[in-house]
């Protein structure tokens, strides 16, 4: 998988500059793109190599929450910064209606400028794409205080 192809996907959707991926190699396994630090892996039996980055299963490429947590901070569009109340819902894995300057599709979801993960924006609703094992039910989050937490 060419780096330029991945940079193009992340650039056209999120405005992330291609230089962000300069030190990263990408390869395709099944219908997932994985990111790794080196162009070649040494000859060993592997359980896993690198970080799951983009799923090509759907109609449009879907970045993993982990990819966005690393590179989402370079995004210039399709980013939404949530209030603490909204963040709590997102982390619980819920959907919520929201007026935002976003194109329909996958978006970078942040809180106070730090990336929480991947969301899907569709017809005025933000749907959490956080992996199930990362979700924390409402009230579970220790430090999201009412009214912004700052």
């Amino acid at each position, binding site marked *: 998988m060419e780096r330029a192809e991945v940079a193009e996907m992340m650039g056209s959707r999120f405005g992330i500059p291609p230089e962000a991926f300069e030190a990263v190699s990408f390869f395709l396994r099944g219908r997932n793109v994985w990111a790794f630090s080196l162009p070649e892996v040494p000859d060993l039996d592997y*359980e896993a190599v690198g*970080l799951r980055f983009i799923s090509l299963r759907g109609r449009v490429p879907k970045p993993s929450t982990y990819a966005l947590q690393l590179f989402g901070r370079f995004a210039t569009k399709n980013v939404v910064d949530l209030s603490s109340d909204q963040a709590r819902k997102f982390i619980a894995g819920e959907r919520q209606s929201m007026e935002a300057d976003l194109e329909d599709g996958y978006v970078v979801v942040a809180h106070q400028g730090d990336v929480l993960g991947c969301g899907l924006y569709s017809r005025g609703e933000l749907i959490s794409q956080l992996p199930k094992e*990362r979700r924390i039910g409402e009230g579970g989050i220790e430090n999201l205080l009412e009214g912004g937490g700052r």
Partner: protein
Amino acid sequence: MDGLSRYAGVIPEFDRFVEAIYRPLPTTARINGLKTGRDRLLTRLRGAQVPCSPFPWYPWGIRMGTDKPGNLLENLMGHIHIQEEISMVSAVVLDPRPGERVLDLCAAPGSKTTQIAMMMENRGLLVANDPANGRVASLRSNCERAGAINVAVTRYDGRRFPAQKFDRVLVDGPCTGQGMARKDPAVLGRWSLKRSLGLQRLQVALLKRGVEVAKPGGTVVYSTCTFAPEENEAVVSRVMERTSGVSLQEVAVPDLESSPGLAEWGGSSFGDEMKRCARYYPHQNDTGGFFVAKLVKE
């Protein structure tokens, strides 16, 4: 005090040691520099009214005033990794650099793997190996959350890790875990000399393989979280006897109190050189207990 009275003659201020071992551990975490900045994270936590203060000896480690650090938003985002303070010392002594080839021979659940990945700035190659099925799942999950992209996970029996050459190797092997008593007091009841000696065979074989797969000039760090010399100095000494061209380097971390490794124990002499290893006791830095040796290959 099962299994601890045998150390009365070697642990300094033994009364204070015993008293410390029954106190719960402070809550600690490591800031993940792959995903956030140190100041940014500290500001975030303080803004959310989580009291925190960096360790005096390691700027990426913090003590936190919270009982449930796992439920912090910063943990979910991978900006912190919950890790016992003293366990951060192995990677600091290993001192991996960006772009190197590094092996973490007994890696699960990946506290040290993710710390090493961060020190390597996500570059080069970090092979994280562990044969234990269930534990590899948590290793992978921790690497994902940390955003490690230079980690390749393997599941070899470390004693038979394939021939490869690494700049640095960490052997953080299985042990009787006496140093974890502050987290789980039951470890003390489970200790026996027989268990220590049984593990010693495995530890020797793991460290020996670790040394074999290091490049000439490479560094191998051996660490455990137990006090038993049978699993510490005796292991290092046995491997050094059987391997030529390996020397011990002084382990000294500024602002972290330690005691020297033991030159002798229970009638066996390991040699003065073993004093270059470091023993960390709970009452010295208010942490768990730990042992670290640093070997360098000619």
